């Protein structure tokens, strides 16, 4: 299956990637998608994550075609 992984704001600068596609044969959680995309870099505890634009937990299981996003605490308003 294929999933798209996106990074935003300071996290994009830290990992050096804006967006990457992962092609995997096994079921994958959000936390595992982070590890694959970031070369086993530990997932920082304050990072927020979304699948298909809804907030999720690291244990959420991904499906083919999902868009996963990782980003730092939000600072709008």
């Amino acid at each position, binding site marked *: 299956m294929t999933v798209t992984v996106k990074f935003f704001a300071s996290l994009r600068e830290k990992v050096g990637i804006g967006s990457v596609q992962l092609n995997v044969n096994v079921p994958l959680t959000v936390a595992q998608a982070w590890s694959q995309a970031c070369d086993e870099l530990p997932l920082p505890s304050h990072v927020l994550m979304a699948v298909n634009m809804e907030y999720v937990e690291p244990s959420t299981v991904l499906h083919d075609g999902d868009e996963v996003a990782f980003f730092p605490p939000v*600072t709008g*308003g």
Partner: protein
Amino acid sequence: MKVVVTTEPFNPWEQIQVYEQQLGSQALQWGAVTTFVGTMRDFNEGDDVQAMFLEHYSPMTENYLQKISQTAMQRWDILDTLIIHRVGEICPQDNIVLVAAWAAHRGTAFEASRYLIEELKHHAPFWKHETLKNGEKRWVAANTSGDAQ
């Protein structure tokens, strides 16, 4: 109910009037409007700020603002809500955000608008990137609490 995320500068007070005119005859049903407007200051955490870039995650941001507007309409006896949020390049004194809630009663209008701005500040995917007067650039680390100071 309306949500706008825009790169264009906006005048919140004019936008409220435009929106109220569109509501037309509903105007006779509300007795209370509460609004919050957030503007960009030229200082932050003790430093002089020259400019700011506001990044967002489209359309998750728009979806999230729609969702909290719907929640507010369900939770309180609200007649309508309006949220406008600026993104992209922003200058000091520019308006960043407008939140407005129309209701029959003032308590409802206050609670709903407060709810909208708190949810927006804590969960809507926006990120501020500041350029200081000394040339340094930095990401704003986190929003402050909404407690009175």
